[in-house]
Protein backbone atom coordinates (compact mmCIF):
# COMPACT_ATOMS: atom_id res chain seq x y z
CA UNK A 1 0.00 0.00 0.00
CA UNK A 2 2.79 2.40 0.91
CA UNK A 3 4.53 4.55 -1.62
CA UNK A 4 7.74 3.40 -3.23
CA UNK A 5 10.87 3.56 -1.09
CA UNK A 6 12.71 6.87 -1.39
CA UNK A 7 16.48 6.77 -1.94
CA UNK A 8 18.71 9.39 -0.34
CA UNK A 9 22.45 10.01 -0.37
CA UNK A 10 24.57 12.18 1.90
CA UNK A 11 28.11 12.62 3.11
CA UNK A 12 27.12 12.25 6.74
CA UNK A 13 24.02 10.79 8.37
CA UNK A 14 23.31 12.53 11.67
CA UNK A 15 20.89 10.74 14.00
CA UNK A 16 19.18 13.06 16.48
CA UNK A 17 18.45 16.77 16.12
CA UNK A 18 18.92 17.95 19.68
CA UNK A 19 21.56 20.56 20.34
CA UNK A 20 24.40 18.07 19.67
CA UNK A 21 22.98 16.86 16.36
CA UNK A 22 22.15 20.41 15.27
CA UNK A 23 25.65 21.68 16.05
CA UNK A 24 27.41 18.73 14.40
CA UNK A 25 25.22 19.11 11.31
CA UNK A 26 25.92 22.84 11.04
CA UNK A 27 29.66 22.44 11.59
CA UNK A 28 29.79 19.91 8.73
CA UNK A 29 27.34 21.60 6.39
CA UNK A 30 29.20 24.91 6.74
CA UNK A 31 32.27 23.07 5.44
CA UNK A 32 30.28 22.05 2.39
CA UNK A 33 29.31 18.52 3.45
CA UNK A 34 25.89 17.14 2.54
CA UNK A 35 24.00 16.13 5.67
CA UNK A 36 21.00 13.90 6.21
CA UNK A 37 19.65 14.78 9.66
CA UNK A 38 17.04 12.44 11.12
CA UNK A 39 14.92 13.26 14.18
CA UNK A 40 12.34 10.94 15.70
CA UNK A 41 10.29 13.71 17.34
CA UNK A 42 7.89 16.01 15.46
CA UNK A 43 10.21 19.01 16.02
CA UNK A 44 13.95 19.49 16.15
CA UNK A 45 15.54 21.14 19.18
CA UNK A 46 15.75 18.15 21.50
CA UNK A 47 15.60 18.59 25.24
CA UNK A 48 17.16 22.03 25.17
CA UNK A 49 14.36 23.84 23.37
CA UNK A 50 12.01 23.01 26.26
CA UNK A 51 14.22 24.36 29.01
CA UNK A 52 13.50 27.73 30.59
CA UNK A 53 16.85 29.47 30.93
CA UNK A 54 20.32 27.99 30.90
CA UNK A 55 23.19 28.30 33.37
CA UNK A 56 25.44 30.13 34.00
CA UNK A 57 24.50 33.01 31.67
CA UNK A 58 20.72 32.74 32.22
CA UNK A 59 20.10 33.20 28.52
CA UNK A 60 16.70 31.85 27.62
CA UNK A 61 17.18 28.37 26.19
CA UNK A 62 14.96 29.15 23.27
CA UNK A 63 17.10 32.16 22.29
CA UNK A 64 20.18 29.96 22.03
CA UNK A 65 18.47 27.05 20.32
CA UNK A 66 16.11 28.69 17.83
CA UNK A 67 18.82 30.34 15.73
CA UNK A 68 20.47 26.96 15.23
CA UNK A 69 17.14 25.29 14.54
CA UNK A 70 16.35 27.89 11.90
CA UNK A 71 19.84 27.65 10.39
CA UNK A 72 19.52 23.86 10.11
CA UNK A 73 16.03 24.05 8.65
CA UNK A 74 17.15 26.50 5.97
CA UNK A 75 20.63 25.19 5.25
CA UNK A 76 21.04 24.28 1.59
CA UNK A 77 23.33 21.35 2.50
CA UNK A 78 21.11 19.83 5.20
CA UNK A 79 18.30 17.43 4.35
CA UNK A 80 16.09 17.33 7.44
CA UNK A 81 13.67 14.51 8.26
CA UNK A 82 11.49 14.93 11.36
CA UNK A 83 9.12 12.45 12.98
CA UNK A 84 11.29 9.81 11.38
CA UNK A 85 12.88 6.71 12.86
CA UNK A 86 16.15 5.10 11.88
CA UNK A 87 15.62 1.33 11.97
CA UNK A 88 18.98 -0.02 11.01
CA UNK A 89 22.41 1.19 9.94
CA UNK A 90 24.84 -1.21 8.29
CA UNK A 91 28.35 -0.70 7.05
CA UNK A 92 29.16 -2.38 3.77
CA UNK A 93 32.11 -1.66 1.48
CA UNK A 94 33.07 1.39 3.49
CA UNK A 95 29.64 2.95 3.09
CA UNK A 96 26.76 3.16 5.51
CA UNK A 97 23.30 2.04 4.49
CA UNK A 98 20.40 3.11 6.65
CA UNK A 99 16.82 1.99 6.55
CA UNK A 100 14.59 4.78 7.75
CA UNK A 101 10.85 5.17 8.30
CA UNK A 102 9.04 8.46 8.17
CA UNK A 103 6.08 8.09 10.48
CA UNK A 104 2.73 9.38 9.28
CA UNK A 105 1.63 12.74 10.66
CA UNK A 106 -1.65 12.02 8.81
CA UNK A 107 -1.34 15.11 6.71
CA UNK A 108 0.33 16.28 3.55
CA UNK A 109 3.32 18.34 4.67
CA UNK A 110 3.63 20.04 1.30
CA UNK A 111 0.12 21.46 1.69
CA UNK A 112 0.05 22.23 5.43
CA UNK A 113 0.46 25.92 6.28
CA UNK A 114 0.76 25.47 10.04
CA UNK A 115 -2.34 27.56 10.77
CA UNK A 116 -3.42 25.42 13.76
CA UNK A 117 -7.09 25.44 12.75
CA UNK A 118 -7.15 21.64 12.99
CA UNK A 119 -5.82 21.84 16.52
CA UNK A 120 -8.45 24.39 17.51
CA UNK A 121 -11.20 22.23 16.04
CA UNK A 122 -10.14 18.97 17.70
CA UNK A 123 -12.11 18.06 20.82
CA UNK A 124 -9.87 15.35 22.28
CA UNK A 125 -7.52 16.52 25.04
CA UNK A 126 -4.41 14.56 25.90
CA UNK A 127 -1.50 15.07 28.29
CA UNK A 128 1.15 17.12 26.51
CA UNK A 129 4.47 15.29 26.52
CA UNK A 130 6.32 18.55 25.77
CA UNK A 131 5.05 19.87 29.11
CA UNK A 132 5.84 16.48 30.67
CA UNK A 133 2.11 15.88 31.11
CA UNK A 134 1.58 18.96 33.26
CA UNK A 135 -0.29 20.62 30.43
CA UNK A 136 -2.68 19.47 27.74
CA UNK A 137 -2.63 19.16 23.98
CA UNK A 138 -5.14 18.02 21.40
CA UNK A 139 -5.13 14.74 19.51
CA UNK A 140 -3.87 16.77 16.56
CA UNK A 141 -1.40 19.44 17.52
CA UNK A 142 1.82 21.26 16.70
CA UNK A 143 4.43 20.17 19.23
CA UNK A 144 5.09 23.62 20.71
CA UNK A 145 4.99 27.31 19.79
CA UNK A 146 8.40 27.59 18.17
CA UNK A 147 8.60 24.06 16.82
CA UNK A 148 10.40 23.45 13.56
CA UNK A 149 8.79 22.40 11.30
CA UNK A 150 5.38 23.88 12.06
CA UNK A 151 3.39 20.80 11.05
CA UNK A 152 1.02 19.11 13.50
CA UNK A 153 0.92 15.40 14.25
CA UNK A 154 -2.32 13.48 14.54
CA UNK A 155 -2.27 10.87 17.28
CA UNK A 156 -4.18 8.11 15.49
CA UNK A 157 -4.37 5.91 18.59
CA UNK A 158 -6.28 8.60 20.43
CA UNK A 159 -8.21 10.10 17.50
CA UNK A 160 -11.99 9.90 17.73
CA UNK A 161 -12.25 9.92 13.94
CA UNK A 162 -14.79 12.74 14.18
CA UNK A 163 -13.42 14.58 11.15
CA UNK A 164 -13.49 18.02 12.79
CA UNK A 165 -9.85 18.67 11.92
CA UNK A 166 -10.25 17.73 8.28
CA UNK A 167 -13.32 19.91 8.05
CA UNK A 168 -11.47 22.88 9.54
CA UNK A 169 -8.35 22.51 7.39
CA UNK A 170 -8.21 25.28 4.77
CA UNK A 171 -5.89 23.32 2.51
CA UNK A 172 -7.52 19.89 2.82
CA UNK A 173 -4.20 18.41 3.80
CA UNK A 174 -5.44 15.90 6.42
CA UNK A 175 -5.11 12.30 5.25
CA UNK A 176 -6.38 9.75 7.78
CA UNK A 177 -5.13 6.90 5.60
CA UNK A 178 -1.53 8.06 5.35
CA UNK A 179 1.01 5.23 5.50
CA UNK A 180 4.59 5.28 6.78
CA UNK A 181 7.15 6.26 4.15
CA UNK A 182 10.18 3.99 3.80
CA UNK A 183 13.51 5.62 3.01
CA UNK A 184 16.87 4.09 2.22
CA UNK A 185 19.90 6.27 2.70
CA UNK A 186 23.56 5.92 1.88
CA UNK A 187 26.18 7.93 3.74
CA UNK A 188 29.95 8.05 4.07
CA UNK A 189 29.96 8.55 7.84
CA UNK A 190 27.51 8.57 10.74
CA UNK A 191 27.20 10.85 13.75
CA UNK A 192 25.01 9.51 16.51
CA UNK A 193 23.52 12.19 18.78
CA UNK A 194 20.62 10.41 20.43
CA UNK A 195 20.77 12.21 23.77
CA UNK A 196 19.57 11.27 27.22
CA UNK A 197 16.54 10.43 29.30
CA UNK A 198 16.07 11.35 32.91
CA UNK A 199 16.26 8.50 35.38
CA UNK A 200 12.73 7.25 36.10
CA UNK A 201 10.94 9.34 38.70
CA UNK A 202 9.43 6.13 40.05
CA UNK A 203 12.81 4.42 40.42
CA UNK A 204 13.45 5.35 44.01
CA UNK A 205 10.40 3.92 45.77
CA UNK A 206 11.12 5.81 49.03
CA UNK A 207 10.56 9.11 47.20
CA UNK A 208 7.17 8.28 45.66
CA UNK A 209 7.81 10.50 42.66
CA UNK A 210 5.20 8.64 40.65
CA UNK A 211 2.61 8.74 43.44
CA UNK A 212 2.72 12.20 44.96
CA UNK A 213 1.51 14.94 42.62
CA UNK A 214 3.71 17.61 44.17
CA UNK A 215 6.93 15.67 43.80
CA UNK A 216 8.02 16.58 40.30
CA UNK A 217 10.88 16.06 37.88
CA UNK A 218 13.39 18.81 37.00
CA UNK A 219 12.15 18.91 33.41
CA UNK A 220 8.65 19.59 34.76
CA UNK A 221 10.10 22.46 36.80
CA UNK A 222 11.75 23.77 33.63
CA UNK A 223 8.31 23.97 32.06
CA UNK A 224 6.84 25.75 35.09
CA UNK A 225 9.61 28.34 34.77
CA UNK A 226 9.42 28.68 30.98
CA UNK A 227 7.75 31.80 29.52
CA UNK A 228 5.05 29.73 27.84
CA UNK A 229 4.73 27.12 30.54
CA UNK A 230 1.55 25.13 31.13
CA UNK A 231 0.30 27.10 34.13
CA UNK A 232 1.45 30.58 33.21
CA UNK A 233 3.55 30.63 36.35
CA UNK A 234 4.98 28.46 39.07
CA UNK A 235 2.16 26.50 40.72
CA UNK A 236 1.96 23.02 42.03
CA UNK A 237 0.18 20.27 40.10
CA UNK A 238 -2.13 19.01 42.86
CA UNK A 239 -4.23 22.15 43.23
CA UNK A 240 -2.63 25.16 41.52
CA UNK A 241 -1.26 26.62 44.72
CA UNK A 242 1.60 29.07 44.31
CA UNK A 243 4.22 27.41 46.49
CA UNK A 244 5.78 29.20 49.47
CA UNK A 245 8.32 26.53 50.15
CA UNK A 246 10.12 24.54 47.50
CA UNK A 247 12.78 21.91 47.98
CA UNK A 248 15.25 20.22 45.67
CA UNK A 249 16.50 16.75 46.47
CA UNK A 250 19.92 16.32 44.86
CA UNK A 251 21.32 13.02 43.61
CA UNK A 252 17.76 11.66 43.50
CA UNK A 253 18.71 9.58 40.50
CA UNK A 254 22.50 9.53 40.50
CA UNK A 255 25.40 8.40 42.69
CA UNK A 256 23.07 5.64 43.83
CA UNK A 257 24.05 2.03 43.21
CA UNK A 258 20.60 0.79 44.19
CA UNK A 259 19.25 2.53 41.09
CA UNK A 260 21.97 1.19 38.83
CA UNK A 261 23.24 4.75 38.40
CA UNK A 262 26.46 4.92 40.44
CA UNK A 263 27.88 7.83 38.47
CA UNK A 264 27.42 11.56 38.90
CA UNK A 265 25.09 13.07 36.31
CA UNK A 266 27.10 16.28 36.18
CA UNK A 267 24.30 18.75 35.53
CA UNK A 268 21.88 18.28 38.44
CA UNK A 269 23.67 20.60 40.88
CA UNK A 270 23.75 23.39 38.35
CA UNK A 271 20.20 23.01 37.04
CA UNK A 272 18.87 22.90 40.60
CA UNK A 273 20.79 26.07 41.49
CA UNK A 274 19.57 27.74 38.33
CA UNK A 275 15.95 26.72 38.95
CA UNK A 276 16.26 27.90 42.55
CA UNK A 277 17.54 31.27 41.33
CA UNK A 278 14.73 31.62 38.80
CA UNK A 279 12.20 30.64 41.46
CA UNK A 280 13.49 33.21 43.88
CA UNK A 281 13.10 35.74 41.07
CA UNK A 282 9.49 34.85 40.34
CA UNK A 283 8.47 34.01 43.93
CA UNK A 284 10.51 36.48 45.99
CA UNK A 285 9.08 35.47 49.35
CA UNK A 286 9.29 31.72 48.87
CA UNK A 287 11.73 29.60 50.88
CA UNK A 288 13.93 27.54 48.62
CA UNK A 289 16.05 24.73 49.96
CA UNK A 290 18.51 22.48 48.19
CA UNK A 291 19.36 19.22 49.99
CA UNK A 292 22.69 18.02 48.62
CA UNK A 293 25.69 15.75 49.11
CA UNK A 294 28.33 17.82 47.28
CA UNK A 295 27.75 20.87 45.11
CA UNK A 296 29.50 20.14 41.85
CA UNK A 297 29.78 23.52 40.21
CA UNK A 298 32.81 22.63 38.12
CA UNK A 299 32.36 24.38 34.78
CA UNK A 300 33.45 27.84 33.66
CA UNK A 301 31.59 30.44 35.67
CA UNK A 302 29.66 27.77 37.62
CA UNK A 303 31.25 28.27 41.03
CA UNK A 304 30.57 32.00 40.81
CA UNK A 305 26.96 31.18 39.89
CA UNK A 306 26.67 28.95 42.97
CA UNK A 307 28.07 31.67 45.21
CA UNK A 308 25.56 34.16 43.76
CA UNK A 309 22.75 31.74 44.59
CA UNK A 310 23.97 31.47 48.17
CA UNK A 311 24.12 35.26 48.40
CA UNK A 312 20.53 35.45 47.13
CA UNK A 313 19.37 33.52 50.18
CA UNK A 314 18.81 30.10 48.67
CA UNK A 315 19.38 27.56 51.43
CA UNK A 316 21.90 24.83 50.86
CA UNK A 317 21.60 21.98 53.33
CA UNK A 318 24.05 19.11 53.28
CA UNK A 319 21.74 16.25 54.02
CA UNK A 320 20.41 12.95 52.87
CA UNK A 321 16.69 12.67 52.25
CA UNK A 322 15.69 9.23 53.47
CA UNK A 323 12.15 9.15 52.23
CA UNK A 324 9.24 11.31 51.18
CA UNK A 325 5.60 11.02 52.23
CA UNK A 326 2.73 13.49 52.01
CA UNK A 327 -0.01 14.90 54.21
CA UNK A 328 -3.73 15.07 53.41
CA UNK A 329 -3.23 18.28 51.39
CA UNK A 330 -0.59 16.65 49.20
CA UNK A 331 2.20 18.60 50.95
CA UNK A 332 5.33 16.50 50.59
CA UNK A 333 7.04 15.59 53.87
CA UNK A 334 10.77 14.95 53.68
CA UNK A 335 12.66 12.86 56.18
CA UNK A 336 15.93 14.75 56.31
CA UNK A 337 19.14 13.49 57.83
CA UNK A 338 21.32 16.54 58.11
CA UNK A 339 25.03 16.05 57.73
CA UNK A 340 25.76 19.30 59.47
CA UNK A 341 24.55 21.21 62.52
CA UNK A 342 22.20 18.64 64.05
CA UNK A 343 22.26 14.91 64.28
CA UNK A 344 18.63 13.86 64.62
CA UNK A 345 16.69 13.07 61.46
CA UNK A 346 13.78 15.48 61.12
CA UNK A 347 10.62 15.75 59.07
CA UNK A 348 10.23 18.86 56.97
CA UNK A 349 7.13 19.80 55.01
CA UNK A 350 7.36 21.69 51.72
CA UNK A 351 4.72 22.77 49.19
CA UNK A 352 6.55 21.41 46.20
CA UNK A 353 9.55 19.13 45.78
CA UNK A 354 11.79 18.67 42.76
CA UNK A 355 13.68 15.39 42.54
CA UNK A 356 16.96 16.21 40.84
CA UNK A 357 16.96 13.18 38.59
CA UNK A 358 20.01 12.04 36.72
CA UNK A 359 20.79 11.15 33.13
CA UNK A 360 20.63 7.77 31.43
CA UNK A 361 21.16 7.13 27.73
CA UNK A 362 18.04 7.53 25.59
CA UNK A 363 19.25 4.91 23.16
CA UNK A 364 21.12 1.77 24.20
CA UNK A 365 22.39 -0.30 21.27
CA UNK A 366 22.01 -3.76 22.84
CA UNK A 367 18.47 -2.89 23.94
CA UNK A 368 17.22 -0.82 21.02
CA UNK A 369 19.17 -2.16 18.04
CA UNK A 370 19.88 0.06 15.00
CA UNK A 371 23.67 -0.19 15.11
CA UNK A 372 25.82 -2.43 17.32
CA UNK A 373 28.07 0.06 19.09
CA UNK A 374 29.95 -1.02 22.19
CA UNK A 375 28.72 0.37 25.48
CA UNK A 376 30.44 0.90 28.81
CA UNK A 377 29.50 -0.33 32.27
CA UNK A 378 27.30 2.72 32.68
CA UNK A 379 25.42 1.67 29.49
CA UNK A 380 26.37 4.84 27.65
CA UNK A 381 28.08 4.36 24.29
CA UNK A 382 31.76 3.77 24.93
CA UNK A 383 34.44 6.00 23.51
CA UNK A 384 37.33 3.86 22.33
CA UNK A 385 39.84 6.67 22.73
CA UNK A 386 38.34 8.65 25.55
CA UNK A 387 41.25 10.93 26.34
CA UNK A 388 42.30 12.03 22.87
CA UNK A 389 39.29 11.49 20.62
CA UNK A 390 36.21 11.27 22.85
CA UNK A 391 33.84 11.08 19.87
CA UNK A 392 35.33 7.83 18.51
CA UNK A 393 33.01 4.81 18.84
CA UNK A 394 33.83 1.13 18.41
CA UNK A 395 32.71 1.19 14.78
CA UNK A 396 34.88 2.82 12.14
CA UNK A 397 33.17 5.84 10.61
CA UNK A 398 30.61 6.20 13.39
CA UNK A 399 31.07 9.14 15.76
CA UNK A 400 29.24 10.10 18.92
CA UNK A 401 28.20 13.56 20.06
CA UNK A 402 26.64 14.89 23.23
CA UNK A 403 25.03 12.99 26.08
CA UNK A 404 24.91 9.63 24.34
CA UNK A 405 28.43 8.94 25.63
CA UNK A 406 27.71 10.16 29.15
CA UNK A 407 26.06 12.96 31.13
CA UNK A 408 27.14 16.37 29.93
CA UNK A 409 26.04 19.99 30.17
CA UNK A 410 25.11 22.07 27.15
CA UNK A 411 28.49 23.80 26.79
CA UNK A 412 30.39 20.50 26.82
CA UNK A 413 27.82 18.99 24.46
CA UNK A 414 28.20 21.77 21.91
CA UNK A 415 32.00 21.61 22.05
CA UNK A 416 31.99 17.85 21.67
CA UNK A 417 29.58 18.05 18.74
CA UNK A 418 32.11 20.30 16.99
CA UNK A 419 34.83 17.76 17.70
CA UNK A 420 32.66 14.94 16.29
CA UNK A 421 32.11 17.02 13.15
CA UNK A 422 35.86 17.41 12.75
CA UNK A 423 36.39 13.66 13.13
CA UNK A 424 33.65 12.86 10.61
CA UNK A 425 35.03 15.35 8.07
CA UNK A 426 38.53 13.95 8.42
CA UNK A 427 37.25 10.38 8.19
CA UNK A 428 35.50 11.21 4.93
CA UNK A 429 38.70 12.70 3.59
CA UNK A 430 40.70 9.62 4.62
CA UNK A 431 38.23 7.47 2.68
CA UNK A 432 38.50 9.51 -0.52
CA UNK A 433 41.77 7.96 -1.58
CA UNK A 434 40.59 4.39 -1.11
Amino acid at each position, binding site marked *: *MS*AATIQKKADVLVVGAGIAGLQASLDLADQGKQILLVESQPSIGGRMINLSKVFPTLDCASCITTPRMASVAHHPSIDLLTYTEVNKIERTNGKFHASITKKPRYLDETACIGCKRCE*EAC*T*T*FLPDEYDHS*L*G*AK*KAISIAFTNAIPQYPVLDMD*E*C*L*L*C*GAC*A*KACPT*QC*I*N*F*MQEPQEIEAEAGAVIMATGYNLTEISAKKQYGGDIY*PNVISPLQMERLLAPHG*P*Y*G*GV*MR*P*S*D*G*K*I*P*DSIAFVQCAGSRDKSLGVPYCSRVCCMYAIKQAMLLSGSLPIADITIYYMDIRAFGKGYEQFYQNAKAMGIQFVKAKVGRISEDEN*HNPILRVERQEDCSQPEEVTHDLVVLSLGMVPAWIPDRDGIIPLEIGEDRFVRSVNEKITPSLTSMEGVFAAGTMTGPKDIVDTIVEAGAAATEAANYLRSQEGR
Partner: protein
Amino acid sequence: MEEEKKLSYTEQIKELRARRGEGSKEKQERSKEQIKAQKAILAAIDKEAKTVPEIAEATGMNTQEVFWWITAMRKYNKVTDETKKGDYIAYRKK
Protein backbone atom coordinates in the same frame (compact mmCIF):
# COMPACT_ATOMS: atom_id res chain seq x y z
CA MET B 1 -2.33 4.93 -3.57
CA GLU B 2 -4.27 6.48 -6.42
CA GLU B 3 -7.48 5.10 -5.07
CA GLU B 4 -6.92 6.33 -1.52
CA LYS B 5 -6.28 9.83 -2.71
CA LYS B 6 -9.71 9.87 -4.19
CA LEU B 7 -11.35 8.98 -0.89
CA SER B 8 -12.84 12.04 0.79
CA TYR B 9 -12.13 12.44 4.49
CA THR B 10 -15.66 11.31 5.34
CA GLU B 11 -15.10 8.12 3.38
CA GLN B 12 -11.74 7.66 5.06
CA ILE B 13 -13.31 8.03 8.49
CA LYS B 14 -16.05 5.57 7.62
CA GLU B 15 -13.57 2.97 6.53
CA LEU B 16 -11.27 3.47 9.53
CA ARG B 17 -14.18 3.32 11.99
CA ALA B 18 -15.24 0.05 10.49
CA ARG B 19 -11.71 -1.29 10.91
CA ARG B 20 -11.60 -0.09 14.48
CA GLY B 21 -14.86 -1.77 15.50
CA GLU B 22 -15.51 -1.85 19.24
CA GLY B 23 -12.47 0.30 20.02
CA SER B 24 -14.40 3.30 18.73
CA LYS B 25 -17.00 3.11 21.48
CA GLU B 26 -14.47 3.36 24.25
CA LYS B 27 -13.09 6.56 22.76
CA GLN B 28 -16.58 8.01 22.34
CA GLU B 29 -17.22 7.38 26.02
CA ARG B 30 -13.99 9.08 27.04
CA SER B 31 -14.84 12.05 24.88
CA LYS B 32 -18.20 12.41 26.62
CA GLU B 33 -16.44 12.36 29.98
CA GLN B 34 -14.04 15.02 28.80
CA ILE B 35 -16.83 17.28 27.59
CA LYS B 36 -18.72 16.75 30.85
CA ALA B 37 -15.71 17.75 32.94
CA GLN B 38 -15.11 20.89 30.92
CA LYS B 39 -18.77 21.91 31.08
CA ALA B 40 -18.91 21.43 34.84
CA ILE B 41 -15.82 23.57 35.38
CA LEU B 42 -16.93 26.29 32.97
CA ALA B 43 -20.33 26.42 34.67
CA ALA B 44 -18.63 26.92 38.03
CA ILE B 45 -16.62 29.90 36.81
CA ASP B 46 -19.16 31.42 34.47
CA LYS B 47 -20.33 34.15 36.82
CA GLU B 48 -17.43 34.59 39.21
CA ALA B 49 -13.77 33.72 39.18
CA LYS B 50 -12.78 30.79 41.36
CA THR B 51 -9.60 29.12 42.49
CA VAL B 52 -8.90 25.46 41.85
CA PRO B 53 -9.96 24.32 45.37
CA GLU B 54 -13.15 26.39 45.02
CA ILE B 55 -13.96 24.85 41.65
CA ALA B 56 -13.25 21.39 43.05
CA GLU B 57 -15.73 22.05 45.81
CA ALA B 58 -18.33 23.36 43.41
CA THR B 59 -18.02 20.48 40.99
CA GLY B 60 -17.15 17.60 43.29
CA MET B 61 -14.07 16.83 41.19
CA ASN B 62 -10.64 16.48 42.74
CA THR B 63 -8.29 19.44 42.65
CA GLN B 64 -5.66 17.80 40.51
CA GLU B 65 -8.16 16.94 37.79
CA VAL B 66 -9.69 20.43 37.94
CA PHE B 67 -6.27 22.04 37.61
CA TRP B 68 -5.37 19.94 34.60
CA TRP B 69 -8.58 21.01 32.87
CA ILE B 70 -8.01 24.64 33.80
CA THR B 71 -4.57 24.35 32.22
CA ALA B 72 -6.05 22.77 29.11
CA MET B 73 -8.78 25.36 28.73
CA ARG B 74 -6.38 28.20 29.48
CA LYS B 75 -4.18 27.03 26.61
CA TYR B 76 -7.11 26.92 24.21
CA ASN B 77 -8.52 30.28 25.31
CA LYS B 78 -11.65 29.18 27.11
CA VAL B 79 -10.47 30.22 30.55
CA THR B 80 -8.54 33.25 31.70
CA ASP B 81 -6.63 34.20 34.85
CA GLU B 82 -8.47 36.81 36.84
CA THR B 83 -6.95 37.75 40.19
CA LYS B 84 -4.69 36.32 42.80
CA LYS B 85 -6.63 35.02 45.79
CA GLY B 86 -4.28 34.14 48.60
CA ASP B 87 -1.88 31.52 47.32
CA TYR B 88 -4.07 30.72 44.32
CA ILE B 89 -5.07 32.23 41.00
CA ALA B 90 -8.78 32.68 40.43
CA TYR B 91 -9.91 31.67 36.94
CA ARG B 92 -12.87 32.86 34.93
CA LYS B 93 -14.66 31.63 31.83
CA LYS B 94 -13.58 33.64 28.84
